């Protein structure tokens, strides 16, 4: 028997079913990005903690520097936290029926916008009182840490607005919403830590 004509009867097995994705690609990418951002904010907070501990009189804010608006920012913090909770409700609503998520998503965006605008108004008042990036280490840390968070909040708000437009057109996928929501949760959850370390 020639080798070329040798055939084998192989029983064809059914193709294995493709395994479902554990986590959407966008969420994996966003989680990796959030890890790097967490380390970035941790570095800033650590530097702030060390500099604060070096103040001779242990008086914070240092002498001659304006006091940060602790009470007003507490209200703003509440708005941001509520925005996170409402976004979670939007996620559950989206799972049931996508169009039901429109109102909670809009409320979440509104509360986030309130937070960013309030921060802007706070900055204008503080600049008026003489607190600038170059006025002291206290001012430099305040604008660097809170400013970095504000930029993240602004970016996340733009992404949430984009998600709302897609939802309105009926094109938003659950993977897209999960990715953007992960970023907003990061912005929401990192804020109380920043408030505690910088304001209190």
């Amino acid at each position, binding site marked *: 028997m020639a080798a070329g004509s040798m055939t084998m009867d192989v029983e064809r097995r059914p193709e294995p079913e493709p*395994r479902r994705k554990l*986590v959407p690609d966008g969420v994996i990418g966003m*989680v990796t990005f959030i890890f790097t951002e967490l*380390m970035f904010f*941790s570095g800033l907070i*650590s530097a702030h*903690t*060390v500099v604060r*501990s070096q103040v001779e009189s242990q008086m914070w804010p240092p002498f001659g520097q304006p006091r940060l608006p602790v009470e007003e920012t507490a209200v703003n913090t509440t708005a941001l936290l509520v925005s996170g909770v409402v976004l979670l409700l939007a996620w559950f609503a989206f799972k049931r029926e996508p169009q039901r998520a429109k109102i909670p998503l809009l409320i979440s965006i509104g509360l986030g916008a309130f937070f960013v605008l309030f921060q802007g108004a706070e900055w204008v008042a503080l600049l008026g009182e003489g607190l600038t990036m170059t006025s002291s280490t206290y001012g430099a840390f305040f604008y660097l840490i809170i400013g970095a968070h504000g930029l993240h909040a602004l970016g996340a708000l733009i992404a949430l607005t984009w998600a709302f437009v897609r939802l309105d057109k009926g094109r938003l996928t659950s993977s897209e919403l999960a990715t953007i929501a992960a970023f907003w949760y990061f912005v929401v959850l990192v804020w109380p830590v920043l408030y505690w370390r910088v304001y209190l």
Partner: protein
Amino acid sequence: MTNKTIPAVPSTRRGIGRLIAPAVLALFALVLLPDLAHACPVCFDARDENRQAFIATAVFLSVLPLSLVAGAGLWIRRRSREVDAEEAREREEREHSER
């Protein structure tokens, strides 16, 4: 029997000889290390608040990435089990309906 060494292969003695210079340099570096340790910001500040802040932030920054990676690993493991359970349930339902 001849006892000739092959020129292309370095002898053991020559290999050890080559290690002596780096070992001496490493010994010098070890002798000088205590001086370098004094440059550590935690060591020279006598103020307790500052020392504690350095130690706390060093521990925090060391533990955070490890806990993030561990957390991500646990989350993926849990998600994998959930997906396995979902797929098994769907397979059972399909088989049941085919019968």
